[in-house]
């Protein structure tokens, strides 16, 4: 055996010679992405599915990339790049429903690795975000993050609320 590259730790009780392997539980960090607009199409009449698809088709044909699509009870909402916001009204002219575009939105990403192994974590973060009083246009979740569409100021307020509550751990 070639032992040239072996380092045998001498501290049998662990400690300094050990590596850290897994990221800590809970929130690992917060990230704010700016430069978005929130598109909301509300009061879409029946047939809802057909009209939702019509909105998406128009956006697609106009070359507008969307993120964070959510179906709401009578419509849909999504996020677009701020520079695409001015094109939306034209793209969606005449679609059934009430179209509104909220400019200058940010997405606050609350990162938490393996979030779904931590029971109740997502609900706790959203509850605190709502309690912060920040305007929340939309929320979403993936296995490792919660996404909150808000204003730049709202992102700061939510961040502060999370830190105050001890949910945002020191990096």
């Amino acid at each position, binding site marked *: 055996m070639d032992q040239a590259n072996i380092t045998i*730790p001498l501290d049998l009780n662990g400690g300094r010679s050990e*590596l850290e*392997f897994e990221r800590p539980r809970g929130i690992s960090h917060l990230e704010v992405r700016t430069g978005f607009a929130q598109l909301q199409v509300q009061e879409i009449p029946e047939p809802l599915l057909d009209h939702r698809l019509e909105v998406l088709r128009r956006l697609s044909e106009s070359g507008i990339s969307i993120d964070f699509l959510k179906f709401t*009870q009578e419509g849909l909402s999504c996020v677009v790049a701020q520079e695409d916001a001015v094109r939306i009204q034209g793209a969606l002219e005449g679609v059934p429903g009430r179209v509104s575009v909220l400019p200058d939105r940010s997405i606050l990403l609350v990162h938490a690795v393996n979030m*779904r192994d931590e029971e109740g974590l997502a609900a706790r973060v959203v509850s605190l975000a709502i309690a912060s009083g920040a305007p929340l246009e939309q929320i979403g979740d993936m296995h490792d993050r919660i996404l909150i569409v808000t204003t730049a100021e709202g992102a700061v307020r939510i961040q502060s609320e999370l830190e105050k509550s001890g949910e945002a751990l020191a990096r």
Partner: protein
Amino acid sequence: MKIKVMKFGGTSVATPEARGQAALRVVSAVEQGFSPVVVVSAIGRRGAPYATDTLIQVLKEIDPTVQPDARELDLMVACGEILSAVIFAHTLKTMGRPGRAFRGGQAGIRTDDVFGNARIVGINPVTLLRTLEQGVTPVVCGFQGVYLPDGNWLGGELTTLGRGGSDTTAAALGAALKAHSIEIFTDVEGVKTADPDYVPRAPTLRQVSYDEVAEIAHLGAKVLHPRAAEIANRFNIPLRVKSTFSSDPGTEVVRTADANKRGITGVTHSGKLVYLQFDFGDVEPDHLRQLESSVYAMMARYGLNLFMMNLSPQGIGFAVPREQYPTAKDLLDGLVIPLDGPTSVVYLFQIGQVPSREAETQAELLGPLGTIRTVRIELTEGCTMVSLIGAEYLARPGIFYQVLNGLASEQISVLQTSDSDLSLSCLIPESELSRCVAYLHDMFQLHQVG
């Protein structure tokens, strides 16, 4: 010393024949100049005599109404891997290759104190290295470690790592031992473009990035646990997923920059979910935020995991795992939230269009208090999540339209969506799962991926 960590899953150690094939792979690695460290799961899958679920059932059968302590459960389920490691080490010996079984703690794996879902906080690999120096192959019990209450090995408590724990053990040992590579052996040929149960000819991906495989694993593929992918990525250890029972080279997991570029990598599915959509149409605008916050705070307090969350002025929505739905129902059906302000209103929550006995009784009792407004919660049981995994492709204009229009043309209804940098997920009725996976696999021509 070129250390190779070789992890064998439950089906790879389920029978003497399977163990023989797995052990041959270890012997072959030695002949190729590697120093293998073996990690094993419990023998067999659900229903097998020593499988994790069977062992849990032994405790639960004593009295189904009494939940076993998490500490005792960990001791019980750890028996499955201990048996497996000892049997595998002895199998190696019968083939002329000395092997020695180690519990997680004996292998130096130290965890935090969360029984049943512990995370590895450190590994001292000295015992394993010394064993390798003696020319003996260590066979380590996957899925377990030890929590040291006072930082002292004396009195250490056995812990288990939760779902996919053996993969995590393998990856962490690979990092601690500065391994040349990690091989995850399973009963399929590697990471597939879709679940072969739904797409029988789904090809094996020859190469995926750590990020992709972590996303695939998080969103349902059971071939590799995401925690293992994250550790391998962090420590930059080559990782390969392959079959114990075939000569197929399997799937190589590499850094994102080195990975093959492709549009969509695969289709996954996960979760048995129940979707709840709250109608806040009759809620006073002043009360909206308080009501939303109260609902989420309650879900948090009782540890419910929420998926596909969304909100709008008309209401909020989320899905909960099916096993957590009874708790959600207990909390929400008949829930009363009185709110003050310019208008004092008592809100009564009701699941479904027809009030349950609880909701009806609450309404009768609250009648004398004045204004009661019902918050209806639309319930959709039997849901699941289907996800497309990809990177830049999912950011293209029109991807949502392409997917949703396609599914609509197949009469597959989509209740909600969510997306990230690497994936796009749709919540659909579970009854449509098979058709949905197969359709999306065809739509993106994933038969041609490899």
